[in-house]
Structures are given as structure tokens and as C-alpha cells.
């Protein structure tokens, strides 16, 4: 068991992209975990879902495009992006507007995810 068990880490994104370095740090953590083949789960709560909106163009801000980085995550074996369903509908978007890897999570599922991971990192 000890040999085969990999630590499961949950990355929780709660902030919009661009206005602070928090969300960028979270993305870098996801990429690093992927590069070292550490299993991570990505959960986007409340304002965090704004990182997944399509058509982001951050060139005039001189910052890396979060939407594009998130779309590249399947290359790092991160196949699913869990999205706070209530927050998504509050801002008038539907799951079809988000990247293909996005899946809806309701409150019960979010609670389970928080309970079932070995570590939680919040960004």
C-alpha cells in the first residue's frame, strides 16, 4: 500500500485571473505536479470559475493567458476541471461555454472532494 499510494492533492481556485498572482501560482502548481506525475484534482470555486471563461485575451495586460494554460492541462494528465455549478450559473454561463475538460460539481460533490484528498492547497 505504502509504495503504490500516491498523495492526492486538491488545488482549489477561488480567485479571478490576472488581478493577483494567486491564480497564476495555482496554475504553476498544477503544471509542476503534472510534470512530476503527482495526482492532482483541480476545483474552481466561486470567482475561480472566471479563469475558465473562453476568449480571454490578456496580451494588452502583458500576462499569460489563463484560458490557454488551462486548456493545455490534459497534456499533463490533468483530464478534468471541476467547476462550481452554482457560481457558473450565477454569472450567466453554461458548461458548454467552458473547455471540454470542465465538469460540473454540486455542493455535495465539492464537500466530498474536500474530505477525500490528502492535501488541499487553496489559491
Amino acid at each position, binding site marked *: 500500500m505504502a509504495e503504490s499510494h500516491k498523495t492526492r492533492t486538491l488545488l482549489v481556485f477561488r480567485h479571478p485571473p490576472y*488581478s493577483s498572482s494567486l491564480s497564476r501560482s495555482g496554475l504553476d502548481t498544477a503544471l509542476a505536479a503534472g510534470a512530476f506525475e503527482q495526482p492532482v484534482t483541480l476545483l474552481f470555486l466561486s470567482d475561480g470559475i472566471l479563469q475558465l471563461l473562453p476568449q480571454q485575451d490578456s496580451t494588452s495586460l502583458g500576462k499569460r493567458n489563463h484560458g490557454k494554460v488551462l486548456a493545455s492541462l490534459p497534456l499533463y494528465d490533468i483530464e478534468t476541471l471541476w467547476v462550481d455549478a452554482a457560481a457558473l450559473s450565477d454569472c450567466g454561463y453554461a458548461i458548454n461555454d467552458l473547455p471540454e475538460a470542465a465538469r460540473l460539481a454540486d455542493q455535495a460533490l465539492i464537500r466530498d472532494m474536500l474530505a477525500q484528498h490528502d492535501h488541499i492547497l487553496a489559491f
Partner: protein
Amino acid sequence: MLLHTLNSSAQSAATRNCCDLLTAQDTVILFGDGVYAGLEGCATSQLLRDSGAAIFALAPDVDAAGIGTKLATGVSLIDYAQFVTISAKYPGQMAWY
């Protein structure tokens, strides 16, 4: 007659306070995280419009957010130069952040 600048997300207490206090004589400029308050489908954009205030959003931040096609009617895009021009017209400004 007051200029309100809002760069806090739609969920924040600052945004709620701003919506509560806007009058029809005021102007509000959404920038940074504040641009999400202009989304067509969100409750905040309705509150902003109900106030009767003029509503502007800073284009570079709207582009970064990817919400240019999803802004509510009545939210006008401005660039940095227009931000300055509008600011210069108002004797007072309240910054919500």
C-alpha cells in the same frame, strides 16, 4: 454626481455597497475584476442598470477576461484615454475595491 470606480469582483461586499449607493446622476467605471459585474447573465449587472447610472467598462480588462461579447446592454467600453476624460469631469470619486 459622483464617479464610482469598481475593481472588485461581483461577489464582493464592495460591489454590493456600490450598487446600493449608485444614483442616476452617477457614473460607474468597471475595471480589473470589476468588469465581471457587467456580465449580461449576472444579478449585479441588473442592479447596476437599475440604478440609472452611466456604466462603462475598461476595454483591455474586458478583453483579458474574455467577456466582450457577453456584456449587458448599457455597458459601454472605454479605453485608458476615455477613462481619464471621464474622470476629469467629476469633482469626486469613490473607489470600490
